[in-house]
């Protein structure tokens, strides 16, 4: 789960990583009286805020008030701004890049840094990037900081400051179960101090049970995705017309891929998971129907989830919701004969192979 910049900075402050003085407002009445130049930053979970007009500068009370009024409720790259971070303006001399992230290849945390900050790290030449994997059992140690500051060609003053920030950044990474903790840019201010001008913190969603201070509602998910999540489904909304219910993440992905290869456009990803209950199937239909698909494909390979349970769920859902859409079902695996029989009695023909089912549902989607 992505945290907002202000949330990340609150954590940084708590761990004594230097951040600019500032405060958050969600209405113009919360704006404090002007004392010195400030930057007004829209709190949205998307990059490129500056270029899209989501960041404004104010050098007196009037421009501050106007900036707040303009930004609150505006859209930055499609996202509505409901909070602003108002911060003291920095006297930027240099910008650096600093982050700790999961290196999935090595299955270890990795420290990444560069003297080229303020831009996407992907656009920085490889020779200017410092990378160092950290043994998760050992954790961060100062030798890593010495290697880094040498690579960055920092003078003693800057090196000392950076080596004070690094262990704290690693603590944040560990303490908050981060996938990523990023300071970009880390600014060398006019007063000679390093300061975190931005924050990007992504927390492993699976760890939220031990971070109760953060709401479980991921702001990047659609309302329907949130509803599905609260009911325990893996559900992703897509832009097509074919509703999909399958079991297992891999098989569900393979189903979407097969649809696409047949020029069919899936409306959603829905993984039933491995629970053997008709209610789960009925509720899955409720979610998919709310996405208003043109046709629906059910693709089940029975294992823990048995085909007859799914069949009974389909029949129940059809009655309960009076499903109007064309329904294409594929059942294979454990109790497939029984499942197919249940469907047959209710006038639904089930395929045993995936490909004919995919072809059928695509033809329905195109022809309807």
């Amino acid at each position, binding site marked *: 789960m992505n945290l907002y910049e202000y949330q990340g900075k609150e954590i940084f402050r708590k761990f004594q990583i230097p951040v600019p003085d500032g405060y958050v407002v969600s209405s113009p009445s919360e704006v404090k009286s002007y004392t010195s130049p400030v930057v007004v930053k829209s709190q949205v979970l998307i990059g490129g805020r500056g270029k899209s007009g989501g960041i404004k500068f104010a050098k007196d009370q009037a421009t501050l008030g106007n900036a707040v009024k303009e930004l609150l409720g505006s859209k930055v790259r499609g996202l509505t701004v409901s909070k602003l971070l108002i911060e003291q303006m920095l006297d930027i001399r240099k910008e650096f890049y600093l982050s700790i992230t999961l290196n999935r290849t090595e299955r270890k945390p990795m420290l990444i840094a560069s003297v080229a900050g303020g831009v996407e790290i992907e656009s920085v030449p490889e020779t200017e990037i410092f990378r160092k994997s950290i*043994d998760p059992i050992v954790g961060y140690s100062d030798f890593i900081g010495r290697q880094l500051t040498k690579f960055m060609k920092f003078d003693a003053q800057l090196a000392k400051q950076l080596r004070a920030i690094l262990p704290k950044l690693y603590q944040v990474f560990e303490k908050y179960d981060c996938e990523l903790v990023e300071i970009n840019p880390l600014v060398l201010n006019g007063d000679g101090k390093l300061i975190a001008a931005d924050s990007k913190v992504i927390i492993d969603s699976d760890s939220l049970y031990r971070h109760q201070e953060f709401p479980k509602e991921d702001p990047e998910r659609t309302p329907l995705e949130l509803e599905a999540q609260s009911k325990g489904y893996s559900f992703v909304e897509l832009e097509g017309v074919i509703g999909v219910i399958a079991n*297992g993440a891999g098989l569900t992905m393979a189903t979407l891929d097969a649809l696409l290869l047949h020029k069919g456009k899936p409306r959603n990803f829905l993984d039933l998971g491995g629970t053997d209950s008709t209610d789960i199937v009925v509720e899955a239909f409720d979610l998919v129907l709310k996405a208003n698909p043109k046709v629906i494909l059910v693709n089940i*390979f029975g*294992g823990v989830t048995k085909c007859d349970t799914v069949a009974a769920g389909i029949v129940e859902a059809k009655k309960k919701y009076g499903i109007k859409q064309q329904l294409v079902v594929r059942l294979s*695996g454990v109790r497939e004969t029984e499942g197919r029989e249940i469907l047959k009695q209710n006038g639904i023909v089930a395929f045993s192979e*995936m490909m004919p089912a995919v072809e059928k549902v695509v033809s329905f989607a195109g022809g309807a």
Partner: protein
Amino acid sequence: MKVIVDENSKVIVQGITGHQGMFHSGEMLKFGTKVVGGTSPGKSGQNVNGIPVFDNVSDLMHLNPDATMISVAPPFVKDAAYEALDAGIKVVYILTEHVPFHDTMEILYNARRKGAWLLGPNGPGITRPGKVKIGIMPNTIFKKGDVAVASRSGTLTYEIVNAITLDGMGESTVIGLGGDPVPGMDFIDALELFNADEDTKKIVVVGEIGGSNEERAAEYIRKNVRKKVVAYIAGRSAPPGKRMGHAGAIIERGVGTAESKIKAFEEAGVRVAEYPIDIPKMLE
């Protein structure tokens, strides 16, 4: 040849009195696995499917277990894994989904220090037809043969294994690595084992979007593997930034795309199936 486990391996289940533990310990027994004991704190003296239940792993070490299946809720997984490693168990398989990956990293590096295998979390386990099954793969889809399968997914693996079996071939070893961003065993671990196993003549790699383990596997195959390898990659249609069910199945900052993985395999001389169902005929 032994691939992590064999027909003599003794298995325990941590969390055996839970829904999954009860059901799958029974299924493992039916498959022929020697499930010798289970744990559930406070429930010693009970039995599940005739398997004796103990409070702690240390209470059942007289049964000489070789492997454990952990099926406890995410907050308790790290402790359960450490308990097994501390007792000296050398194969730790975690069934549980939604384990924080920081926990998995710690378990993995501690397992390595103890010279133990970590399999999972969030995967279906390992099955060696005619020998042993640890995990939750359906018993009925297998037939003993010479095809080894390593996969990041569950149901998709069953689909592919079933197709291989129906086609008249069979499997030597099937390993589900799990759908998490930090897996215990990865493709290279599995490929090393399959490459050395004389019962394995052909290999299937079932990958998905996210991370770069498939690319590294392709590189390993190009350098080391002379057996026939066929691959499948799930998630060609996945949009960037969306987790497709598995925590690990996400395209981040352009890394982990299906295109990159397919290209890496093809450059290593590995044919990549367009549909899972195409795999059996590509193995022939």
